[in-house]
């Protein structure tokens, strides 16, 4: 057994933490629960910020969570290179914390949407995506009411030019600019995506197929080879 330890954060109102921990384990790593109110990253090698409605998504999704004591530890660690993946509410928190550019806003259709979403990988140059290939198409569920990625023009141009767009929707569910479903920071260690890979890791449950498992096997390999 490897020593790869992936932290899974729980805020009040986090919902997909159990799923994320299961996915981490299925990939062969250890899932370490991290609690929002602790100033303690427990020495993990990577962090997964799961989806949900932290603080009820009141005010703006992720707006209150980003001030949590745990975030005070996580923000500098991420800046220093700790691999961090945020999905859905986790992505929103990463944007609110300015670890990723842009913001996630109300879906253009004004409805919450849960569906099995076709996606295309654009850039796989991150510790969370090395098991995928550029151009590869996968199906992974989305489920959100506020997933429309927006940023000013310079930011978008920069993201595209630097290869920071990781995932694009094939059939845009929410009106995101440039069909953007997931991005990474410049260094490549912090990624945010609206889709939920942790819901596509087993044949029996969740979305059809196991297309999401690659995120977890990728980080596992990255940590073991590190």
């Amino acid at each position: 057994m490897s020593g790869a330890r992936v932290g899974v954060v729980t805020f009040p109102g986090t919902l997909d933490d159990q799923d994320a921990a299961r996915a981490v384990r299925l990939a062969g790593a250890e899932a370490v629960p991290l609690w929002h109110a602790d100033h303690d990253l427990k020495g993990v090698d990577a962090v997964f910020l799961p989806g949900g409605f932290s603080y009820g998504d009141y005010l703006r999704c992720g707006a209150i969570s980003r001030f949590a004591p745990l975030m005070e530890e996580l923000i500098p660690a991420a800046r220093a290179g700790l691999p961090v993946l945020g999905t859905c509410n986790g992505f929103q928190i990463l944007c609110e914390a300015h670890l990723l550019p842009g913001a996630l806003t109300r879906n253009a259709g004004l409805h919450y949407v849960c569906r099995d979403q076709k996606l295309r990988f654009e850039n796989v140059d991150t510790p969370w995506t090395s098991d995928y290939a550029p151009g590869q198409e996968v199906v992974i569920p989305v489920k959100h009411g506020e997933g429309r990625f927006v940023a000013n023009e310079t930011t978008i141009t920069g993201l595209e030019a630097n290869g920071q767009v990781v995932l694009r929707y094939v059939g845009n569910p929410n009106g995101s600019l440039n069909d953007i479903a997931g991005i990474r920071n410049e260094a490549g260690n912090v990624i945010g995506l609206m889709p939920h890979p942790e819901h596509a890791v087993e044949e029996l449950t969740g979305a059809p197929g196991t297309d999401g498992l690659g995120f977890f096997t990728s980080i596992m390999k990255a940590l073991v080879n590190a």
Partner: protein
Amino acid sequence: MARVIVDVMLKPEILDPQGQAIARALPRLGFAGVSAVRQGKRFEVDLEGPADDAALAEVRKMAETLLANPVIEDFTLRVAE
């Protein structure tokens, strides 16, 4: 072209979970001295013509039927300077 502002707030006796969650979070974020927060909606309605009485009556009707939910919300209306 005139702009009318419609402010919509939950009636005072109705629970405002959003406002409460914000108010509860503030001390933890280092903000002291706030006793309550309520969150509502603000609409900017741009008119094609001037904000005369007829137009304001129209916006009022719009607020009553569409912008606010009279079962749980109150609204106020004013012309932007």
